[in-house]
């Protein structure tokens, strides 16, 4: 099956071609759904077979020469071949992408049932294209191939956020779904500039674009260039994985249909930045300064987004900020050098966040489009399966044992404590504190979300209450499967000191992240001299989670907070958090307003000077022809006279010559 690696991205691409070209007119819905889901399922089966055969090694499959650009003057080979590579890291990724992707495809059949046939086919075509691009990103063996996938998933994200391009997304901000898609696309472009520049620096420094070649040569790169390349790649990762300051697009990406939010903006695409950071781990290990920045940005993003998440009233917005926060966690882990923990959390997060989004989709489906959690409540009785699976996901993300999030979060926090090989250094302790605080806040806002949606008395209008119904089996089955995953995925990475089970994931990924030997040596040093024993740290994290849940229970047990007596609206800190710290407004004022001013100047220059120049050329031609047409009277006699005079002139000339 390993030889069929090339088929894994190609199958969803074929599904995209079939549904995109024929789906809207020729194929019935049943076939569209079958093609859409079947291609992804086939990709999953192939992936599983390939990973099984790989057995922890490394397999490269060059397919064809893609960009035969020859040699640079410096003598390095600029020929890029299109090829795929499978190693333990990409193995974990393709299993997550195709596995969870397949479940979400199945779920979409139910969620999009009210969509007209053309829209239904378009939706599945885009989803399949996304899968193809995501698999290209994950499997690409050289940076340009990865970049094709990177841009491809960005395109699909744009297309799917704006899937309902004619609808309004945010009435207050006058933002349509198409605007939200554009915002995501443009924000990502900022990051992509960094990615391309980083790629160029690495090519200049190592003379190859092949990832394996770059990583092998990472040690010999000048430290400054190494740091610059790492930071530029991280800028790209910031865009894709929604880190400060480029996270603003992700909350607005919720304009897309909910399965899209689950697949692209929670489980897979947004983790691409984390994936690339982990992929380039040896490079980052040679740039400690860049790693520190990654860790700090990740930690701050985690805390910042979690705080905003407390005050959101839209069920999907809460989940969106939660995603930003969890991605911050992963970046924090990567920056701290705990790459295994980062990938572990990426995987468990894919399970429980996809489950949360799909559960939210099921709720929205039942509520006929209502997304405001203040108008929900008491859904426990009406949506039993959704409720049970959602509860599992909430416990998983809040970090309650034995659910998946507990183990991965603990791995991250343990990794942060040992950051840089100096266990318990002030920076590490500070970042660890950020992590603990975020864990508590995460538990708080997830419990709030759960209580407001499922517990308490129903707050929706009477007529909606009759409409409530559990979603069809095609939607609840993926929920159940994901719930099982969210509950059990954590056992793949049980920390050594708890014991009972070996830490499968760490052993599996060890060949990737121990490449340098350098990092391994660092972690060896730290044994024994820890500031906090792992058990204590774990206890503190668990206590933080429980405290978060308990305080949310105390505050939101009876429903949403009533407005304070006599208060015209939220004030002070509450208002700041409700307004999302006015980051969007600040970016608007600092970046977009000067840009618009520049645009106005350019437009004026274009109109007043460039256009006027071009127009005057036209006017000159016009004037000349106005003169010329005076000669044209239209009377035959005049023409005959001119003809006659001309003959005389010729005659005179001939005779007198």
């Amino acid at each position, binding site marked *: 099956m390993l030889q069929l690696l090339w088929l894994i991205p190609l199958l969803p691409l074929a599904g995209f071609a079939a549904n995109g070209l024929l789906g809207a007119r020729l194929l019935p819905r049943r076939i569209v759904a079958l093609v859409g889901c079947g291609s992804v399922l086939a990709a999953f089966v192939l992936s599983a077979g390939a990973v099984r055969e790989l057995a922890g090694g490394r397999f490269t499959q060059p397919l064809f020469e893609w960009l035969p650009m020859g040699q640079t003057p410096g003598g390095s080979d600029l020929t890029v071949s299109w090829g795929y590579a499978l190693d333990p890291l990409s193995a974990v990724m393709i299993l997550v992408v195709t596995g969870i992707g397949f479940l979400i495809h199945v779920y979409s059949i139910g969620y999009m049932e009210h969509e007209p046939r053309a829209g239904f086919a378009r939706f599945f075509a885009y989803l399949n294209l996304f899968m193809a691009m995501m698999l290209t990103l994950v499997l690409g063996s050289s940076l340009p191939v990865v970049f094709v996938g990177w841009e491809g998933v960005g395109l699909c994200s744009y297309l799917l956020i704006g899937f309902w391009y004619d609808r309004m997304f945010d009435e207050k901000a006058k933002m349509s779904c198409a605007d939200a898609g554009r915002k995501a696309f443009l924000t990502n472009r900022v990051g992509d500039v960094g990615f391309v520049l980083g790629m160029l620096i690495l090519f200049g420094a190592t003379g190859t674009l092949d990832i394996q070649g770059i990583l092998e040569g990472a040690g010999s790169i000048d430290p400054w260039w190494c740091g610059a390349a790492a930071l530029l790649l991280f800028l790209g990762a910031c865009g894709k994985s929604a880190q400060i300051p480029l996270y603003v697009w992700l909350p607005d990406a919720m304009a897309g249909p909910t399965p899209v939010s689950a697949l692209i903006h929670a489980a897979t695409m947004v983790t691409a930045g984390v994936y690339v950071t982990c992929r380039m781990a040896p490079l980052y290990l040679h740039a400690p300064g860049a790693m520190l920045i990654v860790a700090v940005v990740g930690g701050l993003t985690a805390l910042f987004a979690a705080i905003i998440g407390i005050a959101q009233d839209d069920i999907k917005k809460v989940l969106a900020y939660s995603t930003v926060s969890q991605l911050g966690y992963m970046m924090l882990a990567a920056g701290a050098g705990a790459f295994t923990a980062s990938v572990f959390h990426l995987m468990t997060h894919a399970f429980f966040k996809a489950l949360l989004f799909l559960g939210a989709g099921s709720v929205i489906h039942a509520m006929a489009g209502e997304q405001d959690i203040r108008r929900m409540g008491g859904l426990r009785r009406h949506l039993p399966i959704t409720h049970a699976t959602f509860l599992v996901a909430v416990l998983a993300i809040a970090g309650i044992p034995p659910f998946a999030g507990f183990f991965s979060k603990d791995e991250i926090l343990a990794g942060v404590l040992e950051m840089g090989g100096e266990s318990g250094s002030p920076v590490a302790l500070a970042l660890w504190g950020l992590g603990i605080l975020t864990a508590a806040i995460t538990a708080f806002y997830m419990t709030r979300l759960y209580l407001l949606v499922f517990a308490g008395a129903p707050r929706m209008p009477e007529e909606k209450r009759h409409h409530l119904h559990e979603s069809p089996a095609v939607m609840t089955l993926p929920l159940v499967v994901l719930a099982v995953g969210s509950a059990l995925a954590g056992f793949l990475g049980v920390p050594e000191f708890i014991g009972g089970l070996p830490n499968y994931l760490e052993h599996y990924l060890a060949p990737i992240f121990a490449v340098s030997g350098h990092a391994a040596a660092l972690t060896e040093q730290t044994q024994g001299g820890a500031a906090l024993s792992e058990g204590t740290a774990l206890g503190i994290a668990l206590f933080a989670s429980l405290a978060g849940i308990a305080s949310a229970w105390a505050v939101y047990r009876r429903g949403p907070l009533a407005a304070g007596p006599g208060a015209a609206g939220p004030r002070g800190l509450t208002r700041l958090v409700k307004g999302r710290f006015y980051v969007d407004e600040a970016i608007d004022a600092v970046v977009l307003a000067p840009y618009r001013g520049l645009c106005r100047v350019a437009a004026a220059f274009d109109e007043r000077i460039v256009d006027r120049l071009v127009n005057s050329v036209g006017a000159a031609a016009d004037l000349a022809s106005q003169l010329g*047409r005076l000669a*044209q*009277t*239209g*009377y*035959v*006699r005049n023409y*005959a*006279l001119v003809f*006659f005079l001309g003959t005389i002139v010729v005659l005179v000339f001939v005779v007198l010559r």
Partner: protein
Amino acid sequence: MRVEFFLLVAALLFTIGCVGVLVRRNAIVILMCIELMLNAVNLTFAAFAHESQSMTGHVFVFFVMTVAAAEAAVGLAIIIALFRRRRTTDIDDASLLRW
């Protein structure tokens, strides 16, 4: 007779025809004036042919007469078409193609 007399008559005929083409407005008259100019040319050809004892000039006269017949046919057809549409043969009224 000397050839100069023939040439003088031909020049006279040509001038009459030329002036007629330039000053008259009736299409039929203009057509007749063109015939006059062609015949002046024919006369010149014949005169020179006679003078130089060559047949070339005579052959040319026949060509010119044939072409003139064809020209008259086409010209009259145009005039009839013009008259049918506009009820006039005044060429100053047929200036539609002017910008």
